[in-house]
């Protein structure tokens, strides 16, 4: 497996975009591409070639689940963990996200200090199996 460097963050809320960027760039030392919509993610995924994708679940337009489905048709996601970010934490919903092929779920609100290590954990778990 390669190294975790490039993270694509798909999120419509500018407030979350900004804090996640700092959390991942400054705390985690990653390279981050922020996409404001599912469509933007689809447009840019091939050029950016992310190692990890963070997807907001509830977005206007193409939502997180649908974005994942379409991403899968564009790129091979075997080695690219996809984590959903959501405020809804019902166990059956988490199970549903897993069934869509998500590696894990990150719960909002998240701690900016811990986001990078959460992402790193998901990355190593994904490549461990």
């Amino acid at each position: 497996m390669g190294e975790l460097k490039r993270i694509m963050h798909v999120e419509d809320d500018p407030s979350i975009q900004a804090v996640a960027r700092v959390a991942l760039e400054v705390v985690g030392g990653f390279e981050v591409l922020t996409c404001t919509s599912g469509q933007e993610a689809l447009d840019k995924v091939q050029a950016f070639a992310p190692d990890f994708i963070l997807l907001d679940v509830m977005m206007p337009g193409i939502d997180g689940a649908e974005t994942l489905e379409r991403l899968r048709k564009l790129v091979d996601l075997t080695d690219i963990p996809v984590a959903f970010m959501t405020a809804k934490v019902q166990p059956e919903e988490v199970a549903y996200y897993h069934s869509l092929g998500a590696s894990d779920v990150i719960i909002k609100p998240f701690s900016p200090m811990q986001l990078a290590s959460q992402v790193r954990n998901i990355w190593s778990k994904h490549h461990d199996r």
Partner: protein
Amino acid sequence: MIDERGAELQQQLQLLVEQFIAHLRNEIPALQHLAASLPGAGASTREALADLRQRLHRLAGSAGTYGFEQLGQDCRSLEQQTDQLLTLDSLEQGYLQQLAQAMHALSVPQPTAPQSLTSLLTPEPVPEQQEDTLLYILESEQEMADSLQNTLTNFGYRVQLFADEERLHQACLLQRPHALIVDFDHHPQLNKAAMLSNGQASTSVPLFVLASQDDFTTQLKAASAGASGFLSKPVNFSALENSLERYFRRQTDEPYRVLIIDDDRELSTRYALILRAAGMMVEVQENPAEIYPTLMRFHPEIILLDVNMPECPGPYLAQIIRFHDELLQIAIVYVSGVVDAHRQMDALLRAGDDFITKPVGDQTLITTVFARVRRARTLANSLSRDSLTGLITHANIKEQVVLETERARRFNKVTSVVMLDIDHFKRVNDTYGHLTGDNVICTLANMLRQRLRKIDSIGRYGGEEFALVMPQSTSEDAARVIDQIREDFAKLQFQAGEETFTVTFSAGVTDTSSPIESKQVLEVADRALYAAKTAGRNQVKVQLQ
């Protein structure tokens, strides 16, 4: 711990928080305006509601991340309220007005002082698993510090040692721990709130105090410093571990599930709002005739029942609920305006556990529900849990083995079953007494609980015998995990008076990969355990049939 990167980070985060507050200054009034315009919006009401929901959803997600937890929670419950309105077939003006009114309670939070910014920005989530639990220990005595670190690391906690208060303070600013442990002999002036420099949110980080003196005055001092636990020296490590464990187990309790049955929609919406704000899961049922499917789906722990429903009086409904044996553990509390003592008495005699009289204050409502459910949970726990260790009892773990084995077969997965027995336990009891023996059992129970996953089941099978079910693990994986625990457990120093001693255990592991009957899985694990014992104890053996 505050280096250049830390400073840069703090600066950037501060800027972001300022921007966020500026955003709130526009967004909150805009949302309030939107909500206020709903009642007269006519055909476009639904669209506006959906817009409101989406924007509340955003705020609910972002506010907490920026450290404004209360605002985040308020937005969340308003989002849920909006969500509920959207599921209704007809939007009545009353609800819309209610929502608009509730929206008025939102306000822009005060900007925070720069120095406490980073600590505000780390609202610690409740640790999912023990390995995520970060402990800061303030201990200037090297030897003591080392043994604290060793023991707690063995139990799966993440430990950071500090020798002086200033460093601890800086570390707390950068990342809040899940708990603080402080040697009071060397740091008698320490104060939790000051250490976390966050008066309000600091209550969520427990402080455990270690001290040589355990007289009343010292304990009082510890209490005023904000301590949640007090341990006298020499520190009994398993007692310390127990306090931590109890604390975190209490924290991870699932939310209470409350069902409200009331034909007054306005009132039940209000109750639901109050209880949800207190972190409970609430459902409202207006039609008593439909109660049974709701009970089966939602599994409430308490029902708040209106007495005066024209079609089906509350007491009758309570009686109907009590027809079902499997629903006996649900607490039923009447809510009613009836102040007539006779009628209340009559209602209680039919069925039901308690009465609250309308109008019900917010706090009364929360307290009543809280106390009832907590009591019900304690009871339910004590019936299926071993009283010493809090582990699943013999009968229940056996059932769990069969259930999980069958589930594994159904889904074509492998589940491991482990039998584990403390070596020469009788000697411990005979030499050091039963209390010490119990302490050894509890310590092993806690260690298993911490080191295994949430999906694993741990049962106390007999006196010093444990049975474990580990879904989706091959016997190899399970044996590896158990063997690591065996090594670490053998290193633990137990204390009995002046003496210290160590204890070992043996374990037998099997899994469901070979076609043995569910009922025989435990027997195979037991044979593997026997093999481990005869091979000289203090080891783990795998046997597949």
